């Protein structure tokens, strides 16, 4: 029949141990039958994820045959992720994902963990044998390499790949991909790039293009990375990993809005990748797009139900974004969001009960939600329930402390909030990320809608200033400052306009006003981003008055 000698070796198959995971008994039976028919003896079968994972924890499995769709609960991808993540399955073992899907890219989306092969239903005995035969041959041929990867001995794995390349043309693609990936892992970006480039010089292959993009990001060539990945996404609109990398490159280029757009497209095409939803959520939140952020956090939370990536952080972030959105909103929408926030946070307390800080984190946000709906009593009660963990600014975990300060502002306990933030700023003086959070909160200790209004006024003011409409600019900046009086950049903006107008008119009153605004910032610490600007404006003003 086939002029190629088949390499099927009954002994090879028979020696291996198998695990079948499928929720249909008939399918499990028929797979077991097929495996037995070519001599396999060590065959375990499971209908559900948990016993299957449990089994892998205690027994060695060579081949996993796992159906993607397992009904309620975990699916095949969850199992694969958990097995690989917890290292319950060796790199040298084979994971076969069985699907009824032909469009697997779309369904699975971005994956850190990929199966060794897909089998598309319907499967018959002849197909299974053929497929296992080539996978098992590949496994034995490449075992020296995968074993070194299992032992994290990457340099040895690299030299083995190099040795195998000329000898094993059948596995050329696997070897090239693995080699480039190993170079990437050990930080040898130039060799990794060379492999991708060599492949691309011969042929425009999407995996090599993706790899090249990843290296360009790792080496700081963001512009080129974005160009490369953009054209990849255009050519392959169903290549999900390309979107994720493109978003990363755009972020690095300082284009967070474009990055968000890319992730939104990807999340729409392939909505089940938790890490992508999480990435989108954080990005939208930092873009002040709380609608998109809360939707993405909601998806992240729900995808977490069966995933190893589940985390209390997702619940907390969803609660926080809903708290911001519902703040001061007494419509039914606002009420519904507040209610969802409280439900989410209560679920978080139950699901992650063993985590240290969990009750405090939850109650701080709950209190803010109540306050935002005008329920002062409830708001106070929520804080009182964890009061003993909040009273010492020297000991409180900084992230928790910052969130607590936000709630204090919301409860009109401004002085307490400022004192706490002062203490925290001193404690975190070597952590720029936290310092910036503290500055932002001190600048804008108001609700989300108020904050947006102040920001929009600020932009209008800048526009007016650029158009040389100084009176308009002064008026708009004053409006913004009536919302956030301590905002450093805004005070300086206004000061700058006042000084310019003084140059034109000589009106001494303008100088006085400018002075007032600078005085408001007397306590600005040296590490503040606006500090140098403040110093230079102080000097200019001094010069003008002398």
């Amino acid at each position, binding site marked *: 029949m086939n002029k190629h000698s088949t390499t099927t070796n009954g002994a090879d198959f028979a020696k291996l141990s198998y695990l079948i995971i499928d929720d249909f008994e008939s399918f499990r039976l028929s797979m077991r039958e097929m495996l037995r028919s070519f001599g396999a003896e060590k065959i375990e079968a499971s209908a559900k994820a948990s016993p299957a994972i449990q089994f892998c924890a205690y027994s060695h499995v060579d081949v996993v045959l796992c159906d993607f769709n397992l009904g309620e609960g975990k699916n095949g991808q969850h199992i694969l992720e958990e097995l690989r993540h917890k290292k319950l399955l060796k790199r040298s073992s084979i994971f076969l994902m069985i699907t009824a899907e*032909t469009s697997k890219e779309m369904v699975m989306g971005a994956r850190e963990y990929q199966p060794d092969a897909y089998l598309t239903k*319907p499967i*018959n*005995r*002849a197909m299974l044998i053929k*497929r296992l035969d080539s996978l098992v041959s590949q496994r034995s041929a490449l075992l020296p390499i995968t074993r070194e990867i299992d032992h994290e001995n990457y340099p040895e794995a690299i030299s083995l790949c190099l040795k195998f390349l000329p000898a094993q043309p059948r596995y050329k*693609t696997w070897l090239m991909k693995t080699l480039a990936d190993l170079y990437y892992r050990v930080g040898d970006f130039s060799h990794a790039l060379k492999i991708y480039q060599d492949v691309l010089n011969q042929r425009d292959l999407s*995996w090599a293009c993706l790899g090249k993009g990843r290296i360009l990001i790792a080496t700081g060539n963001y512009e080129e990375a974005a160009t490369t990945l953009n054209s990849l996404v255009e050519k392959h609109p169903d290549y999900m990993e390309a979107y994720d990398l493109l978003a990363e490159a755009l972020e690095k280029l300082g284009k967070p809005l474009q990055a968000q757009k890319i992730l939104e497209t990807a999340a729409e095409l392939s909505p089940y990748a938790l890490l992508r939803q999480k990435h989108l959520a954080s990005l939208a939140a930092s873009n002040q797009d709380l*609608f998109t952020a809360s939707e993405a956090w909601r998806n992240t939370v729900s995808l977490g139900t069966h995933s190893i990536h589940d985390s209390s952080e997702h619940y907390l972030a969803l609660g926080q974004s809903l708290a911001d959105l519902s703040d001061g909103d007494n419509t039914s929408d606002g009420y519904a969001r507040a209610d969802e926030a409280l439900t989410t946070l209560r679920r978080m307390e139950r699901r992650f009960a063993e985590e240290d800080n969990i009750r405090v984190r939850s109650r701080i946000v709950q209190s803010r939600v109540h306050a935002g709906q005008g329920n002062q009593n409830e708001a106070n009660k929520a804080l009182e329930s964890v009061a003993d963990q909040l009273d010492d600014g020297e000991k409180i975990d900084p992230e928790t402390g910052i969130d607590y300060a936000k709630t204090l502002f919301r409860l009109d306990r401004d002085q307490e909030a400022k004192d706490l933030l002062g203490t925290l700023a001193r404690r975190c003086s070597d952590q720029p990320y936290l310092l910036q959070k503290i500055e932002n909160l001190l600048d804008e200790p108001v609700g989300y809608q108020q904050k947006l209004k102040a*920001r929009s006024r600020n932009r209008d003011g800048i526009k007016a200033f650029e158009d040389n409409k100084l009176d308009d600019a002064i008026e708009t900046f004053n409006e913004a400052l009536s919302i956030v009086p301590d905002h450093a950049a805004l005070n300086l903006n206004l000061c700058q306009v006042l000084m310019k107008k003084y140059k034109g008119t000589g009106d001494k009153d303008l100088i006085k006003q400018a002075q007032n605004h600078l005085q408001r910032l007397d306590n600005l610490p040296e590490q503040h981003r606006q500090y140098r600007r403040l110093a230079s404006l102080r000097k200019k003003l001094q010069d003008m008055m002398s």
Partner: protein
Amino acid sequence: MSSENPENRNMAKKSGQTIDFSMVLASAVHDMKNSLGMLLNSLDDLRREQSDTISESTKFNTLQYEAERMHNDLVQLLGIYRLGENNLSAHIEEHFVPDFLSEHMARHTPLLEGLGINFELEAEDINGFFDADLLTGVLNNTLNNALRYTRTKIQLTANERDGYLVITVEDDGDGYPENMQHTGTPDFKALDFKSGSTSLGLFFASSVASLHAEGEKTGSIRLHNGGSLGGGIFEIWLP
């Protein structure tokens, strides 16, 4: 002047209430395809369990053949839907051709044996660049078609010609009718639903072929008659 804060975009989405009929169709097709998959699995089990009584039964073979055909059609429909949605692209990788084809043939083995059709695979030891899923869809359909029209024999060959990978399916039936023997892409609007042959498979095959492009070269399909078996010859040329 300093505006530190990125612009806010209120992205509240409006949910459209209009029914997208092709999407409804696509999900129904998806469902039917999966059901047929289960059905085919059961047929395969049945053939194995009852090999003495049914393996050469014409009725049983017809049952499996027709189920396979429907399954292929649905797979192609979904593929064409995704082509229309513009989210089907070829994920081209390098494959060892003999491995790919023999794995592919395995799927058809039970039916071929049941029908008593002789089958030959001749593939050169070469690597080819193609999207394995898409090509599987095309070959399934072509082989299914050959099964229908052949008398005793089907031959699958793969070799390299003029810098293209050429995969050929030949049979010893009556061959393709005159009006189907062409090399271009059939126009979807020109498909003749009245004649009973919708050429859906050919449309899909040529769409898949043309998704395979490399530099100036693009994939294509060719239909003609003759060859060593004297029947229909289907060729897919991939750069």
